[in-house]
């Protein structure tokens, strides 16, 4: 059971890596408007480091081990705020899946919720700051609701992705309050936050690979 689950987590990270890489230039362009134009490159490097670290892991590794390894690989490869934020997200996910390694629908919801919690704790940010949390928080809320209602995976993931997309879109009309774009104050208005845009890519890739 845990073997199959571990394979799905590996596929998930590979898919994220491929999809982020494909959108690298778009993410960097978004970042160029309000940051330093490296978000696409940074995320792509980070997830490439994750997939290569996972490839070196023991075949007996559990989903929790995989998330833990992903956290340290990402942290070693990426600086700025993104490194610690995603590393913490993966660590929290590792804790969340420790008790149920079979990746049930509710475990999948808990992964999204735990990642969001990790990013919130590390960045001390909240909704409306114009950061990746504007996509992660609505996604986590959608995950929690679906978990409580006992929805099936496809419905839950459709809700998660839709919530993240709407959240990312809403960042266009926000003034950045945290992170590098906050340096620009009102100059950040009118631009989608690149961190929220990459969150949508990540969640879509998770949906593609986790829905059985």
């Amino acid at each position, binding site marked *: 059971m845990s073997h199959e689950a571990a394979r799905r987590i590996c596929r998930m990270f590979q898919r994220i890596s491929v999809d982020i890489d494909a959108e690298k230039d778009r993410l960097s362009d978004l970042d160029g408007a309000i940051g330093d134009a490296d978000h696409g490159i940074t995320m792509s490097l980070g997830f490439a480091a994750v997939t290569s670290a996972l490839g070196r892991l023991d075949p007996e590794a559990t989903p929790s081990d995989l998330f833990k390894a992903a956290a340290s690989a990402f942290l070693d490869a990426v600086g700025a705020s993104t490194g610690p934020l995603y590393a913490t997200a993966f660590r929290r996910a590792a804790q969340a899946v420790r008790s149920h390694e079979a990746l049930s629908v509710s475990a999948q919801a808990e992964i999204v919720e735990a990642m969001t919690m990790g990013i919130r704790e590390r960045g001390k940010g909240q909704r409306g700051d114009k950061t990746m949390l504007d996509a992660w928080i609505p996604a986590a809320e959608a995950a929690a609701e679906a978990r409580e209602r006992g929805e099936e995976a496809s419905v839950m993931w459709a809700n998660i992705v839709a919530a993240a997309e709407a959240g990312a879109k809403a960042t266009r009309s926000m003034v950045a309050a945290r992170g590098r774009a906050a340096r620009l104050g009102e*100059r950040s208005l009118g631009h989608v936050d690149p961190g929220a845009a990459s969150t949508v890519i990540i969640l879509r890739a998770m949906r593609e690979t986790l829905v059985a």
Partner: protein
Amino acid sequence: MQRFINNPDLVVEDTVKGFVKAHSDIVRLADNPRVVVAKDAPHAGKVGVVTGGGSGHEPAFIGYTGRNMLDAVAVGELFSSPTAKSFHDAIREANGGKGVIVLYGNYAGDNMNVKMAIKLAAKDGIEVATVVANDDVCSAPISEREKRRGVAGEIFMWKVGGAKAATGASLEEVRVTAQKAIDNCRSIGVGLGPCTLPAVGHPNFQIEPGTMEVGIGHHGEPGVRVEALKTADAVAKDMCQIVLDDHNLPAGTEVAVLLSGLGATPLNELYILNDTVESEIVKRGLKVYKTYIGNYFTSLEMVGATLTVLALDDELKTLLDVDVRCTTLL
């Protein structure tokens, strides 16, 4: 703008390589190519002194690596915090068995990466303390000083912290003294022209010709006001007023003054500013003990200058006078 670069994505790599080649008598590269170490570090029985930050501020941060200054420096991408791993590796390189102090600037990424590096260092059994620079007056009101960013005042914090560590002081003593140095620092920046990250190709903030931005940050963070460019005399008076009003020092206090160009301002203009800066300081009944003028902490090719005023006591004066051996003269 025309530049001497090879590949916009390798600017940091190439900068560090050239730096280490030029100054191999003072620094060396760690196994981690994003960590520059003083050649003779670590020193057994001395508190290790570490900083780190984004690139593009040269000579900060690497240029302050050396004897009686910084033992190791973590190097980030342009305007972007180093990784937690690089901070961790810098801490290890600086560790002489008496603990390590990390003296860095108050930015979201640096705060997170240093915090994570400290946890990693704890697993190695290295005790780490921190002091976070927050000398940029216009980045938050004095009542929220913990939100202020760190700018050129960091140099005084390194100089004082490095010299204190060299006396054989304990980790806590070094922390208290470096904290005093930054508490006694106030800085302001004035921008006359923006800078461009090579990979972006266009400035992501503008300063229109004929205007200046008072209170601008080291990465183009918005200042307190944009207004018509004034004479150097008027700009210097304005800078002094903002810094000294915030400082509120008793008459008779001795101060150190640091006027740094932001990258594309010629040295002679810094001297023109200083002519008025020193007069204004004296007018307030303060005494200038020492003045540093040059490109000490830049922001790529930004046009503009920062003024930092450090209030001194006997201890800080003694530590400021300690000879150092790093590539940037102090």
